[in-house]
């Protein structure tokens, strides 16, 4: 029991930060972290001797995506692809005129690009760990990171019109 706590607790501040960056809501973020910890504890025995940090972030991201799918499925039915072009909740591009908050820039990105920027750039996950969390090959991690950074830079420097241009 103490072993679980001593391994999990050091990860909690980072999990809270990632959750908050995705949801931008204090309570909702801590609910997500609590669900993540409960699931991790419940499945502790099934944990392969892999990377704890990548495992935890993967659980948390999957719970986040499931919640997102569920919220959307109450409305019109959408496929998973639609999630990729889904901006974070509560964003309206018009409100970002003038001084641009880096979070507003983050919000213009699809979830998979937001996640890669957060996991690599903020949480300091290695590229291998990020590949595990996102369940994609490492080459995809690198190209997605490249696209995400270009798109964020475009938005921060050129504003909304540039973001609408598809960055390949």
């Amino acid at each position, binding site marked *: 029991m103490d072993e679980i706590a001593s391994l999990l*607790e050091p990860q909690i501040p980072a999990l809270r*930060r990632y959750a908050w960056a995705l949801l931008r809501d204090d309570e909702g973020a801590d609910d997500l972290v*609590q669900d993540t910890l409960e699931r991790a504890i419940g499945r502790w025995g099934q944990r392969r001797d892999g990377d704890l940090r990548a495992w935890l972030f993967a659980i948390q991201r999957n719970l986040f995506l499931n919640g997102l799918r569920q919220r959307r499925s109450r409305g019109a039915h959408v496929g998973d692809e639609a999630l990729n072009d889904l901006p974070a909740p509560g964003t309206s591009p018009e409100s970002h005129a003038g001084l641009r908050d880096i979070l507003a820039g983050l919000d213009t990105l699809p979830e998979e690009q937001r996640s890669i920027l957060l996991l690599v750039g903020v949480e300091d996950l*290695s590229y291998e760990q990020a590949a595990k969390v996102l369940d994609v090959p490492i080459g995809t991690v690198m190209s997605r990171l490249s696209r995400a950074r270009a798109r964020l*830079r475009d938005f*921060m420097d050129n504003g909304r019109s540039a973001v609408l241009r598809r960055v390949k």
Partner: protein
Amino acid sequence: MTGERPIGEDDLQAFVDGRLPSARFEAIKVYLADQPSLAEQVDREIELRDALRARLAFKAQEPVPSRLRVANILASRRRTPMIRPAVAAAIAWLAIGGVLGSFGGVWWASRSRGQDEMANAAGTAIAAHRIYVSERLHPVEVAADQEAHLVQWLSRRVGKPLVAPNLNPQGYRLIGGRLLPAGHEAAALFMYENAGGGRLTLYTRLGGSEQQTAFRFETQDGVSAFSWIDNGLSYVVSAKVDRAELLPIAETIYKQFEATNDAAKGRS
């Protein structure tokens, strides 16, 4: 420079992240010195990376709320399996207490028949659970957006007023229901789903000669089920969760049907 690996976007990203071995790092610096516009972009990306870290740093420095302490999460898990069965038994006995006063003898006499009905219903319900929760395209016949129609239809076919219990506080959202055969009669299956994609089913049909029984628990290959009979209906709630997690849900369903029955009696 012969034989050296050409510079790729992966090198540039690792450069932004400061993750290149020093020889490669120097090579990128030389390369960028000849490419001022690319160098400018890379510098800007480093700035933005730092800005994002700085913007979010406060969250990781906040004191961790006590509900996220692992010890507290473990304690609430440890507590549940020990206390819950006792609570369940208490609730079940309280529920039948009033009936025992008048029908006690009858209840005891027919107890074994009630057990048979429950075992039978539970077996059928778990089988239905297995078949339909794994169904991706058509898990339900009538979806939850037609809930009123669904409940009315299933009530008419089963032959008693049903409700689709509200399990939102327990984290389960109704996704719909279907009609199933139960011998010569009909059974209803309501399906729910939680945020993790875990599905739960509530199976209900006429409960034979019984009016009321206590909760009965069983588990088959990872699927847990609580069954009981109340007011002439057999209920089986099944999910791939452990007993401690399923019990409060069974209690909630029990109480909601009880409230509906009381309301119906109040009207008549």
